[in-house]
């Protein structure tokens, strides 16, 4: 139970973190650098999972992705596959919960950069894409990294939305937090303790790593 939950958690959290990092940074760039109608509405929509109870977020995800949901229906029609009660569902739930943290951190980091650095780059003949990767991203890297760490932590601890969308199927969708709950409920205190310890140590390691990675460069 512990080993399988650990493996599922690693898979789910890795996939969710990578996806959230890419999508969240792109979304944050659009929010920080572009003006368009409905921009604040988009921001609110992305931020919603941060304030909604996770079970409500999970419920909306079912409505959207379930076999009768608008997205889920299309997916089923095209591939004959439904996302509900798979490990992918757990990753989607974890990703949806982590996305606001990523977008918030990355947007703040991008908005704090002096835009004139980008103008300098354009003036030196560099395209927007090249400027993004060679100037904007390096300058915002610490804020973005902080967002990745927060997203990782959020995805690792995800419980409510995962339970709604992916269920609690041992060896299939049961992540560490779900396994801890089940072990505790069924009186397997030692197992619960061990898993809690594993998650605690992982979290401490993540915090340490984050501090090292985001440490400001030493002044001369």
């Amino acid at each position, binding site marked *: 139970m512990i080993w399988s939950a650990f493996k599922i958690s690693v898979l789910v959290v890795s996939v969710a973190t990578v996806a959230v990092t890419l999508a969240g940074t792109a979304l944050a760039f659009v929010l920080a650098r572009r003006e368009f109608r409905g921009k604040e509405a988009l921001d609110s929509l992305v931020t919603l999972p941060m304030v909604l109870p996770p079970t409500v977020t999970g419920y909306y995800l079912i409505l959207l992705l379930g076999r009768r949901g608008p997205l889920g229906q299309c997916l089923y029609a095209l591939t004959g596959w439904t996302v509900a009660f798979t490990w992918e569902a757990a990753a989607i739930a974890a990703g949806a919960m982590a996305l606001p943290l990523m977008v918030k951190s990355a947007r703040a980091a991008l908005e704090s950069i*002096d835009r004139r650095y980008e103008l*300098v*780059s354009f003036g030196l003949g560099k395209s927007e894409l090249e400027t993004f990767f060679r100037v904007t991203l*390096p300058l915002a890297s610490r804020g973005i990294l902080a967002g990745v760490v927060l997203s990782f932590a959020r995805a690792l601890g995800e419980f409510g939305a995962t339970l709604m969308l992916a269920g609690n199927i041992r060896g299939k969708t049961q992540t560490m937090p779900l396994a801890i709950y089940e072990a505790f409920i069924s009186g397997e205190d030692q197992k619960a303790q061990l898993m809690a310890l594993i998650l605690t140590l992982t979290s401490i390691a993540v915090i340490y790593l984050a501090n090292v990675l985001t440490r400001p460069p030493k002044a001369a």
Partner: protein
Amino acid sequence: MLNVAIKKQFASNGRAGFALNAAFTASQGITVLFGASGSGKTTTLRSIAGMVTPDAGRISLGDAVYFDSTTRVDLAMQKRRVGFVFQDYLLFPHLSAAENVAYGAKARHERVRRQRVDEMLKLVGVDYAAGRRPAQLSGGEQQRVALARALASDPAILLLDEPLSAVDAATRSRLLDEMVEVQRKTGIPFLYVTHSPADAVRIGDSLLAMAEGSIVQQGRPREVFNAPLNVPAARVVGTENILVGRIAGHQPEEGISAVDLGVCRIAIPRSQLAEGSRVTLGIRAEDIIVSRECISRTSARNLLAGKVRHLLRDGESVELVADCGVDLKVRITPQAERALELVPGVEIYLLIKASSCHILP
């Protein structure tokens, strides 16, 4: 040859605010864009670079049209061959000095690129700091690297926005000379924005005086400073005394004309204007001599009696306001103030050469 003729309206709080309406040409050498802050210098510079889009007009550099509102041309910043140097350098903080310069270098091959970087760093004299990050460089060094970075991209013109206003006085003086040297060596025309008259006169081959969004005079810097052609230009270059009067008569054989200011008459160099024409005179505060005695045998054609109204210490100099029927501002040294025992109320005489009195059209 840079050709600029642009208009842009800025609204402030819903009201029609500042209006930019600038037209000028700039060719070889260093052209100084001079004016007070808020006169539109930076907006003009940014329009040329493509950071600001004018409402109407045309900007071209040689055969390349950067902007033309009638044919809807608005060339992207990347396609304009314009180098830009900011006041606060804006070196990429995550790259070394050499990497900053290399960022703009066009050369494809690594070896050629490295040569170009070395060459540029040597040109501005910071090759010894190639490996340092911007945070490890002094202000002067950062500005030199910023100059090298802009030059490495092989621009057709270099725009400099108050590039020396953030460095200390000694460095500033050295950098001014270096800038002229770099310009002469590269042959790239510079358009240099400043509000410092000293800098303008020192490095400018040509000067554009700008006030309230318009170019009010263009010429050699000393010409513009010594003989502003109109009231706005006189204000820009700091002609403190602007007086309005009428031509009272001419003495062609004496080489002078007289201007009646109502309370007194002023002799000016022979003017072609008809008697009775209204004229505006500009007299610079530092062109007036103060005396405690009435001197009769002097070449100065104007001798005005008056009283000291007040004195204002302004850094290294003193601004004296004399009441001679009209108020005249005079700039003197603190030493003169002390030696002449000048205090408000004392009687003084002002001596002004006819040739220091300029008619402003």
